[in-house]
């Protein structure tokens, strides 16, 4: 069973349907035990870094993610859900950083690009051995964001360029994350979700 963590961020029903296309049973939940014990946990995220962290902490999501990392239980962060896995982020701050969950000890910062948000379909280039992008090397995925991580973490990475090169996906043992929205990336996104479910 796959749990999509409901912490007040984004529309979860279309995400649920996208994950159901893989054939898996999917629940949308903010229940701690369900989220801790699900075969796979999806942490979505729409909006600002700090607002997402506040919502996540409210349902104990930061502890749930850390516990799943410690037990190496499959967990997937999407968009801001990926960003809050990092140590901190500087979205809408005046120098002071917002703390993230801290799965990865790197920062999320504003992208240097002439036009932001980075909105639309872009390609990825893979470094390392990826399961997530199995058969999907030449596909495009849908991005909507102005902030990103730029340092490599994990065993395999996907990189995308918009103004500058940034981290568009990470595979780190049982913990995966995508800066793009697989649930909004058409057939390529559904195929990536299927790859993730096959890893559970």
């Amino acid at each position, binding site marked *: 069973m796959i749990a999509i963590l409901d912490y007040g961020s*984004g*529309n979860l*029903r*279309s995400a649920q*349907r*996208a994950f159901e*296309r893989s054939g898996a049973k999917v629940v949308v939940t903010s229940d701690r035990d369900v989220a801790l014990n699900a075969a796979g946990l999806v942490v979505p995220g*729409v*909006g*600002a870094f700090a607002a997402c962290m506040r919502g996540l902490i409210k349902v104990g999501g930061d502890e749930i993610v850390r516990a799943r990392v410690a037990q190496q239980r499959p967990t997937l962060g999407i968009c801001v859900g990926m960003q809050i896995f990092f140590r901190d982020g500087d979205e809408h701050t005046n120098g002071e950083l917002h703390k993230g969950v801290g799965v990865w000890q790197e920062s999320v910062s504003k992208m240097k690009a*002439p*036009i*932001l*948000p*980075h*909105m*639309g*379909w*872009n*390609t990825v280039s893979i470094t390392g051995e990826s399961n997530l992008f199995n*058969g*999907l090397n*030449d*596909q*495009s995925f*849908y*991005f*909507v*964001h*102005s902030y990103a991580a730029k340092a490599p973490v994990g065993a395999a990475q996907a990189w995308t*360029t*918009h103004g500058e090169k940034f981290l568009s996906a990470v595979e780190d043992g049982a913990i995966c994350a995508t800066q793009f*929205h697989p*649930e*909004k*990336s*058409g*057939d*390529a*996104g*559904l*195929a990536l979700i299927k790859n993730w479910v096959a890893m559970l």
Partner: protein
Amino acid sequence: MALSIRIIPCLDVTDGRVVKGVNFTDLVDAGDPVEMASLYNAEGADELTFLDISASSSDREMTLDVVRKTAEQVFIPLTVGGGIRTVEDVDRLLRAGADKVSINTSAIARPELIAEIADRFGSQVLVISIDARRARTESGFEVTTHGGRQSAGLDALAWVEKACTLGAGEILLNSMDADGTRAGYDIGMITAVRAISKVPLIASGGAGSLEDFAAALDAGADALLAASVFHFGVHRISDVKKYLSAQGYSIRTNTAV
């Protein structure tokens, strides 16, 4: 590779149905929004836009249902515009499955609405739709209301700057002079707006020939929205993308996976 240009078909919706002369030979029921969304998705649409043209609030409820059904079956970004006046209207649409909303008249009437929506949901959900035409204003372009029939008393470039400052995530620029003519986008207007805005720019109004699409991109548009040329089958989305690809533009070409 770089960020691809986006081709966005726009569908008018009311009473739970897609309306306004849609003319597909290969559709069983041209009015079914999910069926149309699926067809455009299969043709390579990079996003979909629904424009709610409902006259009554009960019709608007039906639109939520259309959004819900579409978002649960077609997994590409969906923007909904029309009749959005409050943050609560936005909340309802996002919960139904819209990824972005576009506002037009309500932002002119009360510009703070832009900041209210951006603060609550983030700029990335908010498209500011501007119906503009050539006029004797400072920039030579003015904002109109009522489908281009009335002047809003606003200079179009000044309005773009204000909307961006308040938190617009994207600008949808409709040329009321070019709209429906199929004589080409208003290139001068696109160039002028591009020069002063740092958010993505969607050009709309006037698409006719394949060269028109390329000209709008050259003028600085990031995305191209069109209705009638797609609905009436003048061009298929796949043909537009094939043409633009051959001209060297970066387009999304997802192979079957």
